[in-house]
């Protein structure tokens, strides 16, 4: 079947979609947006969390056909989404494929020098920057889902208590960090937002 929907502000079309495919599969394998992660495919880890019409959901449990005509924001579009938040509509994200990882890109991948940002950090959303700064990223597989969930929490509740953070992120498993640095990151992003108000 054919599915049309908006991803990160850009109209997308997928053809020859098998009816049992999830939104996650379509994003990862058909749209070149592998940022949403495939850790459990049963809604028990949150690593595939995206915003569907603004609402955080597990994209592995949304049937591809269900997103027809709807708006999706993934981690690849999070920075733009956050930047445009004040205008109350999602911004335009990456073009199809531009944010994914082709084999060529993977081959060329090199870790940049640590402590230095290989690009303008203004391109990151505050929560993304806070995750880097607080050491909340290790293997990073849970990171995209956590970022989408944490960003939505701070949108709803700019000054969350620790218990609020824990509750909001209780659907996102992390196996590396023990969550302490993730809490730190959300606190940091909240504190930075308060400073700039």
């Amino acid at each position, binding site marked *: 079947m054919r599915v049309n929907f908006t991803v990160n502000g850009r109209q997308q079309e997928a053809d020859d979609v098998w009816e049992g495919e999830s939104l996650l599969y379509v994003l990862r394998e058909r749209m070149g947006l592998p940022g949403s992660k495939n850790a459990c495919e049963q809604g028990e880890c949150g690593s595939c969390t995206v915003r569907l019409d603004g609402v955080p959901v597990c994209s592995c449990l949304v049937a591809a056909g269900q997103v027809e005509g709807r708006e999706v924001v993934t981690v690849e579009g999070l920075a733009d989404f956050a930047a445009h938040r004040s205008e109350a509509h999602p911004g335009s994200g990456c073009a199809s494929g531009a944010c994914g*990882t082709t084999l060529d890109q993977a081959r060329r991948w090199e870790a940049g020098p640590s402590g230095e940002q290989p690009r303008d950090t203004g391109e990151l959303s505050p929560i993304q920057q806070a995750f880097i700064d607080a050491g909340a990223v290790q293997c990073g597989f849970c990171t995209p889902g956590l970022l989408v969930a944490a960003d939505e929490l701070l949108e709803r509740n700019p000054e969350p208590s620790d218990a609020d953070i824990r509750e909001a992120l209780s659907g996102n498993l992390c196996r590396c960090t023990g969550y302490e640095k993730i809490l730190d990151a959300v606190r940091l992003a909240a504190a930075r937002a308060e400073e700039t108000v």
Partner: protein
Amino acid sequence: MGVTGSPTNIHQGTRTRGGIGESTLRPDGILKVTGEFAYSSDMWHEDMLWGHTLRSTVAHAEIVSIDTSEALATPGVHAVLTYDDLPTSVKNYGLEIQDTPVLAHGKARHHGEPVALVAADHPETARRAAAKIRIDYRELPVITDEASATAPDAILVHEGRSDHHAGHVPHPNIVHRQPIVRGDADAAAARADVIVSGEYVFGMQDQAFLGPESGLAVPAEDGGVDLYVATQWLHSDLRQIAPVLGLPEDKVRMTLSGVGGAFGGREDLSMQIHACLLALRTGKPVKIVYNRFESFFGHVHRHPAKLWYEHGATRDGKLTHMKCRIVLDGGAYASASPAVVGNASSLSVGPYVIDDVDIEAIALYTNNPPCGAMRGFGAVQACFAYEAQMDKLAAELGMDPVEFRQLNAMEQGTLLPTGQVVDSPAPVAELLRRVKARPLPPERQWEVAGEQADVRALPGGLSNTTHGEGVVRGIGYAVGLKNVGFSEGFDDYSTARVRMEIVGGEPVVTVHTAMAEVGQGGVTVHAQIARTELGVAQVTIHPADTQVGSAGSTSASRQTYVTGGAVKHSCEAVREKVLEIGRRKFGTYHPAWATAELLLEDGKVVTDGGEVLADLADVLEDEAVDIELEWRHRPTEAFDLRTGQGNGHVQYSFAAHRAVVEVDTELGLVKVIELACAQDVGKALNPLSVEGQIQGGTTQGLGVAVMEEIIVDPKTAKVRNPSFTDYLIPTILDTPTIPVDVLELADDHAPYGLRGIGEAPTLSSTPAVLAAIRNATGLELNRTPVRPEHLTGT
């Protein structure tokens, strides 16, 4: 976090920004937060096919026949492979013993063993085709424990063993046995005023890394294959893959893709050979991605164990002796079982001084899921048991459990049961003192003045099971002993290629190793080492691949030590070469080139007095210095097969925990309130990463204390909970604050004095939580994980 200890000896370049000792940020951080980082499951190729693995539905059976005809005839299917399609006479692989069939032949030895492969143009096509493969099994009785494995008429899991352990084991269904005997435990027992014993059970834990097994194999024009995978050790994979494919190693080019966690579970092969076979057969790129269900069958787990311990002590609290017997269930294939046995036996004494010991550890072959490496590697199971013993002894003696441990704590100079002397700091008593000295978290944190009880702070959490009823607090302590690096005479080395050149007028260093970055932050540390050693700000970490020599495994807490050591070593060689060039070009202009101690700092050659002699740009001009060297730690020895004597380990690592828990004693639910850790890290190369490792390891220990267990049906040997619905790992609401206290007592034998850190916190976390639950409930609790049934006697 407090960092204390003696300063370590650093000769070069500490003044360069971003060097060791700083919490520099991850070089892959931005890619990871933007979703651009390429994990193995993110690989994509034009025209690629999807591989699928058909696995045995029974644990032990003869495979009478396999009919793939219908599957092959399915539109969209490009290949179906079974054992008969393997291209060479090498059809098995394995880390130490090559006992694991690439595809099952004649016999399936465990539930979920790969039997056939399918490549198709869509994953659903591959699944549907796999479902059409007809396998006729003739089921065999299952071997599930020591009794069934060593019964006189037991079926042999592996007939005709010829591996190097086969000759010394008491039964062919025992993979390896390692006794350690020192002193006279029976005679010492006679001197004991109190003797305590116990039988302990450790459940099967899963690594539960979040990134499932996956990768992409691309056939090459030269008949070889390019393989992109997530692994812990590229060269070990290569050594096992190439012979099965019938290719020379240089035609199997491996590149590390992004690794979504490992924790030991990627030390063995999973889909590597399968993807290559399908790619070579079809001539097309083949991607394989396990889902979570399959992942539970796709990698080995932590050995479940039964441990019997006896300890004695004198009335004044000194340990007299220890006897123990540790039975590890290795499952159907050897994997890392022999080394796990070596660890379990040699570390079974824990961080205590006990002169008279009688130790035996074995690993079984059974039809249970294969078990192998997981963070803590044999030391975890032992620590759970000996720490329970320490609490029992302290209780018998009426002593404080921490003071009792401190009284018997190992220190530098202690002679271990293996006859090895601990020759670097062993601050066991101090670590315990630190966790004990911390203020306790406030009581009854769920009570909010004038408000409703906040269930998020209570056992049961959001499930709203208590508002304080039945809740009792408990406190427990534990400390553990872990080795660092590969032991028992293994040639444990790493390789680093370091290149310095001038790009755009600035010196740039490229560090190329085959180290698997699995999240631990090795890439961060390598860049820091290069900055420190070469005084260059701009450091590029080359992707890990097999175009450079082996880095060894990202396991055994060894990578910062060994590959970090290799990077340091190669940097030193590059520095010498750069200085040599400098002397050649400029030596005649300034006497200091010949007489002074020279350093590289901020892109310049300087004297130790700080005088600038030359810019690196002028020294090198368009010349590049490019050096690849191996580096190895001090050699170790094998343990004697009868006495267990031998200098088997290179370094030890210590962590202590204090757990504060609240237990709903009526419902048997546990909330861990705080899990404080103190650990000696020798030298924190990156303090932020050190904390992250300690907190992460601590949480995995918490998981196996209260929830994590792969449940295998003892009648069928089938896994009952292969999903994240029923194999539970801690959420952020299950994980307490984890305050970390880091000591830096240098090990003079190690680079920068550092100590491997990744595993030690996983050891002591579990027994500390168990001790706290015992403290709250008064129950004996000899098994982990603790389930509500155990706490409620139901």
